[in-house]
């Protein structure tokens, strides 16, 4: 069975079913509907290139003029090509892509470990390309910390002193920093291991020490390079939840690199997909899943557990049979006849869901000469919210013979999900033609039987 998922956080995801404009070439602009524009930008990446090799500047210039990655091979390896994006404060921004696509190179430029060959990285209002060495060190101590892909622990120090290292650099006293480091170790489940050397731990445990070290630094920006890759699935899941919790509680800005699509979809407010140094798509999990920019992204998302990522809003369809509460049995039966369904949802003037009316009840009321819907509106509907994951829609869909009603925060009916649409949504997009996608799937409403 699909594991339960916390839904609270996804509330700020888009409720729009409109996919972002897919732009396979160049860096797609962040979709304004999904970016919390009201919050200030924490990290801004502007036209960044990184080339390793003999003539990096020359290679970057050619790339800027439109040369391909292979065309500049003789001049050097283009690890990152024309990357641009803004990460807002409190956002989890996930970067994913195959091995060698430039993810680690990109993240290393966000704290100035590597200088971009061209372009700018802004951390708050500091341009990392031009800040002095002293200011850069201060930024690293106070604003941005990092979890390394290969842990990068100090092998000659105990686990505790490793976790306390950033605090030591910050100039904190021994007792205080050890206490804070211990708290961080407890948080990642390594309480009791503080006196061991890193070499005495398993890979997953070492990774958690690296995590504790970055958390102990207590900076507002966290760079995490495949920070969970060495963890076994259970602990990984636990760490993901903890990260989300932490992020919610403390509003950290997190830039998270991963190979694992499910992890990306689970954690990321937005996801950037990289290929051969370029960012090929930036969008929410839903946008990437339902509208991949190209075959590469489509292949990438093919194996995702779609039920955990897609939410009700991305598969719901416009309800065809909706009866106003103020109308009577005549309107109700005609609506159902026209829509060829045997039950209809009833809403009030504000479209707030009131209940369900059935065709036989409506016909009976009509015969009895009743003028209103009084007494025949059943309230036995259990609506779901727009950000309910698909995985949690199966139970309501199975229990009810009606399409599942989807309501927004104010209880207004915004859509319905017929069972067939639900099943269809689980098929990756390349296996269904566009005309089969949920928006056009309303006809299938008729096949839903109304009788219990």
């Amino acid at each position, binding site marked *: 069975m699909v594991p339960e998922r916390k839904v609270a956080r996804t509330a700020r995801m888009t409720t729009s079913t409109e996919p972002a404009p897919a732009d396979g070439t160049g860096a797609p602009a962040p979709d304004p509907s999904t970016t919390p524009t009201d919050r200030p930008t924490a990290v801004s990446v502007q036209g960044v290139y990184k080339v390793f090799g003999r003539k990096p500047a020359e290679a970057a210039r050619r790339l800027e003029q439109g040369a391909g990655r292979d065309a500049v091979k003789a001049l050097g390896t283009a690890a990152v090509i024309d990357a641009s994006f803004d990460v807002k404060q409190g956002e989890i921004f996930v970067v994913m892509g195959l091995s060698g696509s430039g993810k680690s190179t990109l993240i290393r430029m966000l704290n100035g470990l590597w200088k971009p060959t061209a372009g700018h990285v802004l951390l708050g209002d500091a341009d990392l390309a031009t800040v002095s060495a002293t200011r850069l060190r201060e930024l*690293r101590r106070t604003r941005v910390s990092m979890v390394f892909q290969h842990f*990068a622990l100090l092998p*000659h120090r105990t686990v505790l002193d490793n976790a306390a290292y*950033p605090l030591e*650099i910050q100039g904190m006293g021994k007792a205080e920093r050890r206490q804070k480091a211990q708290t961080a170790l407890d948080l990642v489940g390594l309480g009791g291991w503080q006196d061991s050397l890193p070499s*005495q731990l398993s890979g997953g445990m070492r990774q958690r020490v690296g995590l504790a070290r970055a958390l102990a630094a207590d900076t507002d920006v966290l760079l995490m390079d495949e920070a969970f890759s060495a963890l076994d699935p259970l602990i990984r899941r636990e760490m993901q939840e903890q990260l989300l919790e932490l992020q919610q509680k403390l509003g950290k800005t997190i830039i998270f690199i991963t190979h694992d699509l499910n992890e990306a979809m689970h954690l990321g407010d937005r996801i950037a997909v990289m290929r051969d140094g370029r960012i090929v798509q930036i969008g929410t999990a839903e946008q990437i899943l339902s509208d991949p920019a190209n075959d590469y992204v489509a292949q990438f998302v093919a194996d995702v557990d779609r039920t955990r990522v897609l939410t009700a809003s991305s598969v719901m369809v416009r309800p065809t049979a909706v009866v106003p509460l103020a109308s009577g049995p005549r309107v109700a039966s005609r609506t159902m006849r026209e829509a060829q369904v045997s039950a209809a949802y009833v809403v009030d003037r504000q479209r707030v869901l009131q209940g369900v009316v059935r065709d036989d009840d409506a016909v009976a009321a009509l015969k009895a000469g009743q003028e209103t819907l009084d007494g025949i509106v059943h309230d036995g509907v259990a609506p779901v919210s727009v950000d309910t994951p698909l995985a949690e829609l199966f139970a309501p869909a199975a229990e009810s013979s009606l399409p599942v009603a989807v309501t927004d925060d104010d209880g207004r009916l915004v859509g319905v999900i017929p069972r067939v649409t639900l099943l269809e949504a689980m098929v990756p997009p390349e296996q269904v033609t566009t005309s089969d996608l949920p928006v056009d799937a309303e006809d299938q409403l008729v096949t839903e039987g109304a009788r219990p």
Partner: protein
Amino acid sequence: MTDTMIPRVQLGDWVATFVDWLTSTFRPVFDVIKTVLLAVYDALETVLHAPPFWVVAVLLAALAYAAKGWRLGLGTLVGFVVIASVNQWGNAMDTLALVLLASAIALAIAIPLGIWAARNDRVSAVVRPVLDFMQTMPAFVYLIPVVTIFLTGAVPGIVATVVFALAPGVRFTELGIRQVDKEVVEAGHAFGSTPGRILRQIQLPLAMPTIMAGVNQVIMLSLSMVVISGLVGAGGLGGDVVAALQRINISLGFEAGLSVVILAMYLDRVTSALSSRSPVAKALATTSA
């Protein structure tokens, strides 16, 4: 015969002229160096000579025991008794004093130079060929300019030894620092540490096993050069080796030579044991396990 078209270049003469110029110009500097070296050497020699044989032998054996274990301690004691029994104990202590002093000076120059070369590619590019030159130039050749500057005795021996033994100290230090996991150094930068602090807290501790291997090499090269310095009257075991050579005295040659071997084994075993006992070396050893 002038069967080549290439004119004779008086390279050697130029070097000789340069050394002469050096000697006359920096006379006062060399005098100071000489006085200081001689004073330190005399002090060291006195410390090793003043106590009776068995006190020094037991102390050195205890050091070996502490560094490695009872086998090395016992072996040391036996070896030193052998040295004393062939009447080379005094010479051996002179040689030990020369080696310790020359090694200390060589390391004091080599380690900072190695650090500098590790952090600066240009320095490394300059230092490398110079080291190659110093290491491959026949050891005796160093004695010639050194004698013109410092005349004979312990001081020219020490100076020639320092020059000769420098190379591995620089090389191993540079190698050790460059070998430190890049990501660990990056972690230091990522959390805002200063380069100096990264050097002290990360690079040097992690490079220590390699640097210690360099220390071991420096000491062993020092010993071999100190013996050769017998040619310029540096004294110690080298003095007897040279004397035996000049008089074709097989028995003296063997006894002095054997003493050199015992001293060499002692220095080698103790320094390599000390380097593998450092906490970093232990931490690193378990990493690969």
